[in-house]
């Protein structure tokens, strides 16, 4: 399995094709890195041998290799979901399940390869770093975390913020105790796939009582055609701690479909609070099939803030298992589906203890042939007395060709639960547009203002620079919304 993709002979015709694709990508989207120069790949498609090879390449302990192989079996055994978005076009055998861009981690920006540095410059990371807006950056290039920095004061506080592979190497005991406990390997087909081939992601441990007052951030990018990205994040918040983790994704556009299937596990211990923010902006050929779940123990608070702007298909339902008395879960979710996109997103709240509360607010916008679906579960287990849950789903349709669905599931086993669900569907009304146009605002800007107002309850919860980015992304998507 040590062959590298670049050593294969490439016919002139294929080279030309690649060159054309490259030119197109550069012409249309401004930039894109060369896609040769990978240090190691496991090749296209997936076998048990490939899974073992990934583990061997990483020099992992036997238990992790065995876990990967078990997960691979579960992945093969489990059927494709027969609900949600259409996944029939994913060519699983064409995907690179593991790709390594470079053999070593860089410690400063200057050490990064020029191409990668250039990409990150475009994403604005060094600038953000310079301005100290971010506490630490684990910039993920392909599957290997290349650049990694944690601010010294965090280290002094005992905060662990590593890429997940390093987390396994350096803190095996903590890692093994928590890994795959929130999302077992056979939880669902894509969680199983991730467990088999995971690489990269963030490993974070916040010690007891430590409150990290600035958001921890990581940027992820897909850069190789047909390359799946299977990062794995594990966050452990010890009692009384607090952290806000921010994940962002961008990807250049390629001609065939890519698969992104991450798993995020979070353990929020007694009295701790974790906020996890994602603005997902994959290119419109990416299948984004993600499993995110947190366990909130006694009086703990878990907040997911989830933005889905990009991708071809997203299926993502951030979940909170409220296992301790008085635990609190919240999901704020905003989705935007443009032509050809299906955002099937939502939330899951499982109340497994008394006096637990959950709150879900979902805002979705659909345009063109885009389709947004809210799919959510509120489950109140027997014994979770005095549980309370409120769900609100609002959909905004920008034209008559888009589609929006609401699929809320409420499963209540406890007689004194208080559960509420509300949904509305609306469009940008002619009255609103007329009013704003009469004040001299043109139609495009008026529509954009209405959309900004619609998502404001979520945008205001984001860190300032992310709020700006969300508004900018939506403004880009909105161009020509009124045709």
């Amino acid at each position: 399995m040590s062959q590298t993709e670049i050593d294969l002979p490439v016919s002139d015709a294929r080279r030309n094709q690649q060159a054309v694709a490259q030119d197109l990508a550069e012409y249309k989207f401004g930039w894109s890195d060369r896609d040769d120069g990978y240090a190691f790949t496991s090749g296209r498609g997936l076998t048990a041998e490939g899974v073992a090879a990934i583990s061997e390449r990483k020099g992992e302990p036997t238990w992790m290799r065995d876990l990967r192989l078990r997960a691979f079996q579960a992945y093969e055994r489990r059927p494709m979901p027969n609900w949600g978005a259409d996944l029939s076009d994913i060519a699983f055998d064409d995907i690179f399940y593991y790709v390594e861009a470079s053999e070593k981690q860089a410690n400063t920006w200057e050490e990064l390869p020029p191409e990668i540095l250039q990409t990150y410059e475009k994403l604005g990371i060094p600038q953000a770093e310079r301005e100290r807006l971010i506490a630490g950056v684990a910039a993920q290039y392909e599957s290997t975390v290349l650049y990694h920095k944690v601010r010294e004061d965090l280290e002094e506080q005992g905060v662990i913020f590593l890429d997940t592979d390093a987390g396994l190497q350096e803190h095996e005991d903590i890692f093994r105790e928590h890994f795959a406990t929130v999302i077992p390997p056979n939880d669902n087909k894509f969680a199983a796939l991730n467990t088999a081939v995971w690489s990269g992601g963030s490993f974070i441990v916040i010690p007891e009582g430590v409150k990290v007052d600035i958001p921890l951030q990581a940027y992820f990018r897909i850069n190789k055609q047909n390359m799946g990205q299977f990062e794995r994040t594990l966050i452990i918040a010890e009692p009384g701690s607090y952290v806000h983790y921010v994940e962002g994704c961008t990807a250049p556009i390629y001609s065939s479909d890519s698969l992104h299937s991450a798993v995020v596990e979070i353990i929020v211990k007694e009295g701790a609070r974790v906020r996890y923010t994602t603005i997902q902006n994959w290119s419109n050929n990416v299948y984004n099939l993600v499993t995110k779940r947190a366990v909130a123990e006694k009086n703990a608070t878990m907040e997911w803030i989830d933005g889905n702007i990009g991708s071809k298909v997203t299926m993502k339902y951030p979940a909170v298992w409220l296992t301790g008395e008085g635990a609190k879960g919240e999901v704020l979710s905003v989705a935007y589906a443009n032509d050809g996109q299906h955002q099937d997103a939502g939330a899951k709240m499982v109340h497994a203890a008394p006096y637990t509360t959950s709150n879900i607010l979902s805002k979705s916008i659909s345009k063109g042939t885009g389709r947004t679906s809210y799919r959510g579960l509120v489950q109140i287990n027997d014994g979770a007395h005095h549980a309370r849950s409120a769900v609100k789903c609002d959909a905004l349709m920008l034209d008559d060709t888009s589609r929006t669905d609401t699929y809320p599931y409420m499963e209540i086993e406890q007689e004194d639960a208080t559960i509420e669900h509300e949904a509305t569907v609306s469009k940008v009304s002619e009255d609103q547009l007329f009013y704003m146009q009469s004040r001299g605002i043109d139609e495009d800007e008026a529509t954009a203002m209405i959309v900004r107002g619609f998502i404001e309850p979520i945008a205001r919860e984001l860190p300032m620079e992310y709020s700006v980015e969300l508004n900018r992304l939506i403004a880009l998507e909105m161009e020509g919304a009124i045709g």
Partner: protein
Amino acid sequence: MTTLTTLTEEALAGASDAAAEPSWLRDRRLAAYKRMLDQAWPDSRADEFWRSTPFAQRIDVERELVTSGAVDTPASFTADLDVEVAVARIVDGALVEVTVPSSLVELGVVVADLSDAARDHADLVEPALGSLTSSDREGTGGDADRTVTVNDAAWTAGVFISVPPEVELDVPIVVQVHATVGGAHLPRVLAVLGHHARASVYLEHTSDADTDALVDEVVEVIANDAAQLDVVSFQRWGNHVDHLALQKVQAHRDSRVRHLSVTVGGRTVRFLPETDLVGPGAETRPLGVYFADEGQWFDLQPYVRHLAPRATSDVLFKGALQGHSRTVFRGNIFVHKDAVGTDTDENNKSLILTEGARADATPFLEIECSDIVAGHGSATGQIDALQLYYLTSRGIPREEALRLIVTGFFREVFADVALPGVEAAALTEIDERIAAADLSRFQVNDASLKDHHDE
């Protein structure tokens, strides 16, 4: 013995010939039989629409097909009304009696054996029968599953109802379905209302207390332009009956449909009141009340498809649960992209009275058209301590107060249902359930008292 899985082409053709059905109907049964052979029984793990009722655990299809019965049925609740109603009685898989008052006959109203009507009223029956079960479904959900197809092929007791154009009836047409012997029962009802007709069809489902049966029922109703239709379906089965019901209405231009279900009996009831709004300006109001007790499993799936402009729908289902019971509300509203001006609302409220019950709610919306008003809501709660406190502070004994609160909870559904006998009959059923309940086990939610105190 013939069961739902050992049906043969010969047996179906033979039964059709024995009933002197016309050849088109026999061919249609055989075509359905062929479709059925290509289908498997539902798999609740794989089929999203069966997720809410575990088919393999709760539905036994290896039962002998029941095809003959006697006249002896309990009296219809309409017997207490001082009106003369048309009644068709299906007992143990056979249509045993049809009574139509001469006043209705004079108006041209038909209530008849469906096999006979296929011959005598072929112009009405041929285009309508099976047109709703085999029609394409847009939105979530596939074609009719095997539980419907088997009825298309093998229904044994059919009733045809026709109300001619512009005929308005003040008295209901009653179809009684009664089971006394175990086995598989396949009743079928087809009703056609002509344009500007007005009628109500009551379906009463009953059984002997110990009858262990599967009743797989299909009801198709066509409400032509500007017709006014009420369908009322009472499920008052004994505790050993499993009932699979598809009751589907096609609503044409400016028609007004109301579909009220009262589900209190049965071991498993999977009830699908569906409306296809195919004409502009049509209106449907699927209403439901249900009261589930120990061991009962009610899966209620109102489905409305908005396929034409300016139609309205308003779904309201309210249920109470006690003991180890399970209810599922699985509503779905589909709005086609052509259905501009749609106005739709979907609501489900559950009252969990005692420990051990479970109420699931999945009020779905699927919307392809932006020029609409849509909302839905669902709430699950329990008896409100503040209400109870108020009533008892006025000197009403606690038990009586609990009864009043539960009855009041259901009354919202009947708010403007002015159908003779229906509300009284439904509330009687619910009162009986409450009377049999151990009110001391009712749980009261004190959250409102606390909230009140906080203010």
